[in-house]
């Protein structure tokens, strides 16, 4: 499995490359929905090959942050720098082309299409040819389709899913659907991969397998990964840096050890200690 995807940085795995431009920088990011401030003063920097975690109680605003990063919502204030470039005003489509890929809390696959086609759609911008080449079956169609097929199969083999290539995406078991979503996101050649509750509904052995796969992805593709999770074993197990959100504001940032000892975090999850 050598160089399948062009490498974005020449980081030495698994160290975070502190001497290179961070892949993502959020500066005073915030969004209001009418009178409600959903996220406020969100500051975060993520290194080129860092695995970061975004945690917090339900309703804290974690998916809202993802939606801001992928421009499902436009921020009310603040800046998002992707690879040093300001993403202000970009659409969801543009920001994906700039290097942000994501999975969703509620799985969003192209359910009537095959597993392989789902991945090929991820490869849409990586392997283009014109509509006319497609309609008139010009040589470019044949050569690019062949390459797409090969690349899609390579990507599927990361999760050992090649044999499912022709299955209808909607008929896959739940865990396979989640993995397919990740493969599709990877196909877009991102600089950072945002995973929204990737372990939801998984049992401990599937979760352990997922942890290995996330590390494998980071090592193979030299990309950063940020994940939202509630499963603390997963988070503490693979995240190098963790950011804790509550009521739309960051209450703590740091390594897993620091976070576990942080009283504000404990209070957010477990509530205030009762007076004796």
């Amino acid at each position, binding site marked *: 499995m050598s160089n399948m995807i062009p490498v974005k940085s020449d980081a030495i795995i698994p160290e975070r490359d502190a001497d290179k431009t961070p892949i993502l920088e959020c500066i005073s990011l915030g969004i209001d929905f009418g009178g409600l401030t959903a996220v406020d003063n969100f500051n975060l920097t993520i290194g080129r090959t860092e695995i970061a975690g975004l945690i917090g109680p339900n309703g804290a605003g974690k998916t809202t942050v993802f939606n801001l990063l992928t421009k499902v919502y436009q921020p009310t204030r603040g800046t998002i720098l992707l690879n040093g470039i300001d993403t202000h005003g970009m659409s*969801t*489509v543009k920001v994906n082309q700039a290097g942000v890929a994501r999975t969703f809390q509620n799985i969003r696959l192209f359910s009537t299409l095959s597993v392989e086609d789902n991945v090929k759609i991820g490869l849409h911008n990586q392997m283009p040819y014109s509509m006319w080449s497609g309609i008139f079956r010009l040589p470019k169609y044949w050569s690019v389709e062949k390459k797409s097929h*090969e690349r899609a199969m390579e990507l599927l083999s990361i999760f050992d899913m090649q044999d499912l290539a022709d299955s209808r995406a909607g008929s896959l078991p739940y865990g396979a659907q989640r993995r397919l979503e990740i493969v599709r996101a990877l196909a877009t050649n991102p600089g950072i991969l945002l995973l929204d509750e990737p372990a939801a509904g998984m049992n401990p052995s599937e979760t352990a397998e997922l942890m290995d796969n996330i590390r494998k992805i980071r090592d193979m593709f030299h990309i950063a990964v940020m994940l939202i999770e509630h499963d603390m074993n997963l988070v503490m197990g693979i995240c190098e840096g963790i950011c804790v959100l509550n009521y739309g504001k960051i209450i703590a940032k740091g390594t897993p050890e620091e976070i576990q000892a942080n009283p504000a975090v404990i209070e957010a999850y477990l509530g205030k200690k009762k007076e004796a």
Partner: protein
Amino acid sequence: MKNKGIRLTRTTRTSAFTYGLVIVAYIILRILIGFGGISSSLQGMLVPICAYVVMAISLNLTVGILGELSLGHAGFMSVGAFTGVTAAIAMTNGVPSAGLRLALAMLIAAACAAVAGVIIGIPVLRLKGDYLAIVTLAFGEIIKSILNNMYVGVDGAGLHFSMLTSSDALGLAADGKVIINGPMGISTIPELSSFTAGFILILVTLFIVLNLIHSRAGRAIMAQRDNRIAAESVGINVTKYKMMAFVVSAALAGAAGALFAMNFSTIVANKFDFNTSILILVFVVLGGLGNMWGSIIAAAALTILPELLRKFSDYRMLVYAIVLILVMLATNNPTIKQFFRKLFGKKKTEEDVSHE
């Protein structure tokens, strides 16, 4: 790559079946015509059937593949009919060969319908669901209204055009000819259409539509149909691909309109109304969304059906309506579907279980 070989065959098999269906039907019908085995009324319907088949395939591209309900598809047919016939008449002296004139007229019709598709697509494709459907209906009616009030004539100086007045207002020279006469439509149509031309148009339509679907653009179109937000999140420019499908669909409908019109000596804009749009929609839904060979069979069968029911005379449209309702109930009610499955001994699928 063993997988690739098998997979190509599966999609190719359905496509081959579709082409084969059309080619075999054409050959059989040609033979029957040669032996006089087809009634003259049925023979007269062959060109309209070809036109309706193309309409159904193109509407299936919009409703089944793009995934949006269009209630104004007859509007594109109308644009194609009027522009195609006008072009054919204007070319009478310039292009001697009838076949070539028909082909050029259909091309011009397709191009004009494509332009209409772009103009209409820009507002329409911004809306969703029932609202999109209603706006397509509105545009269909607008096109009908405009064409009903349009006057076009040709003379030595070229094409003359006027709205809402009369043919006199065109100011044609003595040797000039009125082509479109307001609500009277066109009454001097050169009848250039033929069954062979229709057959070729169907093949061209299938070539364009099937190749589009089984290509990168087709995948993008179907992706946004299944999940627009996910499609955007992987960098698909949804607006571009929605337009692509919509405009291709419109262009093909335009060509079908030209073919249809040049089968008759007169056409009026009122022929291409909401009822025609619904008629084509019924073909598409009955044949199966996204299923091109289904559209072909449904369009042909449902156009012939009222003819076959002639023996019921007055009751035939009633029978048509009842058949339609019963077929929709049979193909969509889970209990009835289950009944037929048990009858034919098929295994229950996961989908059936989840609906119980």
